[in-house]
């Protein structure tokens, strides 16, 4: 786990990292001991590549473009960048990546982001507003529903605010725990579901019984009041609420080096 005791911790006044850095580092640490992960562009790709650069050099990165075992030397802007194909162990077709590798149960961890998330880690990446008359048409689900369904477990990366954390999704693109603890089994989803949600404020995990997301750690300098103010439902808190270990010098140096490989801001979520 990525947290230390809250006792006596106080964040320095000027931190050499920002909240996106903290999210990426926390996500990279969550990949310790993981062999194979399914990665999307943006924060997940940056985090997975940071994990390779720090303490999981053998992590197998799988992108839905069909590149298995990609070892990019610079951060890709798209899941189809030539760098991913050129450095992959093998490149397979799109039906194959979904049917054999993902649905076949070969992927341990999947990373997802979304525009909205509810308390059961269901995700919306489809529309804001009514589906037939949306105020904002978002790109859509893409690979996310099957990633969330079939990966051994899922890590969600999402900034925490009353815009992104919602009582009721405008559209359910991707199932986390549905309406509660029994829904994944009822829906025939083979993976265990979201095990960790990493926000810019802290870490949440599903309650073992109810599956409702529970704040288990706050990033340095963040109070539970901050997290509660950014959450429209009554946010549950774990008994031993921890403080996330801040990024260390090595993690930050590797992250800076990674981000420098991409012309534009590689942290775009």
């Amino acid at each position, binding site marked *: 786990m990525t947290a230390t005791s809250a006792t006596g911790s106080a964040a320095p006044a000027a931190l050499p990292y920002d909240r996106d850095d903290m999210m990426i580092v926390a996500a990279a640490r969550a990949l310790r001991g993981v062999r194979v992960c399914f990665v999307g562009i943006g924060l997940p790709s940056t985090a997975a590549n940071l994990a390779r650069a720090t303490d999981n050099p053998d992590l197998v990165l799988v992108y839905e*473009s069909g590149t298995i075992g990609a070892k990019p030397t610079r951060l890709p802007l798209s899941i189809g960048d030539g760098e991913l*194909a050129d450095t992959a162990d093998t490149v397979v077709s799109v039906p194959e990546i979904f049917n054999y590798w993902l*649905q076949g149960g070969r992927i341990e961890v999947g990373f997802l982001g979304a525009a909205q998330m509810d308390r059961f880690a269901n995700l919306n990446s489809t529309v804001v507003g009514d589906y037939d008359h*949306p105020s904002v048409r978002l790109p859509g689900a*893409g690979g996310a529903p*099957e990633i969330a*369904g079939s990966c051994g477990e899922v890590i969600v990366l999402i900034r925490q605010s009353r815009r992104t954390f919602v009582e009721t999704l405008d559209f359910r693109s*991707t199932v986390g725990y549905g309406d509660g603890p029994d829904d994944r089994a009822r829906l*025939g989803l083979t993976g265990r579901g979201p095990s960790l949600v990493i926000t810019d404020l802290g870490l949440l995990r599903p309650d073992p019984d109810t599956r409702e997301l529970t704040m288990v750690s706050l990033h340095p300098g963040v109070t539970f009041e901050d997290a509660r103010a950014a959450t429209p439902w009554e946010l549950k808190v774990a008994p031993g609420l921890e403080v996330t270990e801040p990024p260390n010098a090595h993690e930050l140096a590797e992250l800076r080096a990674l981000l420098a490989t991409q*012309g534009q801001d590689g942290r775009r979520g």
Partner: protein
Amino acid sequence: MVVAEIQSLAQAVSLLVHDGDCVALEGFTHLIPVAAGQEIIRQRRRELTLVRLTPDIVFDQMIGMGCARKVIFGWGGNPGVGSLHRFRDAIEHGWPHPIEIEEHSHAGLANRFAAAASGLPFAVLRGYFGTGLMGRLDTVRPVTCPFTGESLAAVAALHPDVTIIHAQQADRDGNVLMWGITGVNKEAVLAATRVLVTVEEIVDELKPPAGGVVLPSWVVDSVATAPGGTYPSYTAGYSVRDNAEYLRWDAISRDRDAFVAWIEEHVMRGSAVPA
């Protein structure tokens, strides 16, 4: 026809793509047939049902120029950048006219092509259940496994009237070779009634590299050379993705007038492919 005709892109589009057709332009994040899409814009095709897993810039342009009646897709964004503004404008504001959408997951749409390529009425996957898409789509229904009794999602076979893809090479007989990320190209080709392949070049002899995919001439109707025809996407071995152009497209496509002016200058007056 028994073997593919080698034609100009204008000839091939004129012969194979008709108003009202269901047209798949595939190429998953690589080998995107942008030049062919722009030729369809130039020939002012209308009422098309356009199919792509990832609409990308090419569909943004076609939708913005009024080619589409309906779009079947999985993820409609500008990869790594944000929105497809012409796609959004059509859905959110009906500009230049309202479009119908049929939205799937990537796995679902890929399996629709695979079912059609396999000569089956549907494909089966674990998906859709519990999502807002289930119940909204005529092409997805629950099916019970006859062996285990499990409930699974059946997705209807998708047979495009025409599939258009881009590949690296063809030989003089019209046999096609592609490599790198080949996405759902093979399935989309074998699912279609008619097939157009644009290529970087015609060569005397195909020499498939490891992982290369060959489509024999007799499953292809037309081959047209379109060097650089995936720009700003790319063709492995020939070009690299112009990420900066994807960023520039965000600004060009935000504004209707700027978009139309860009199309007039870069598409209607000839080739959008840089010299």
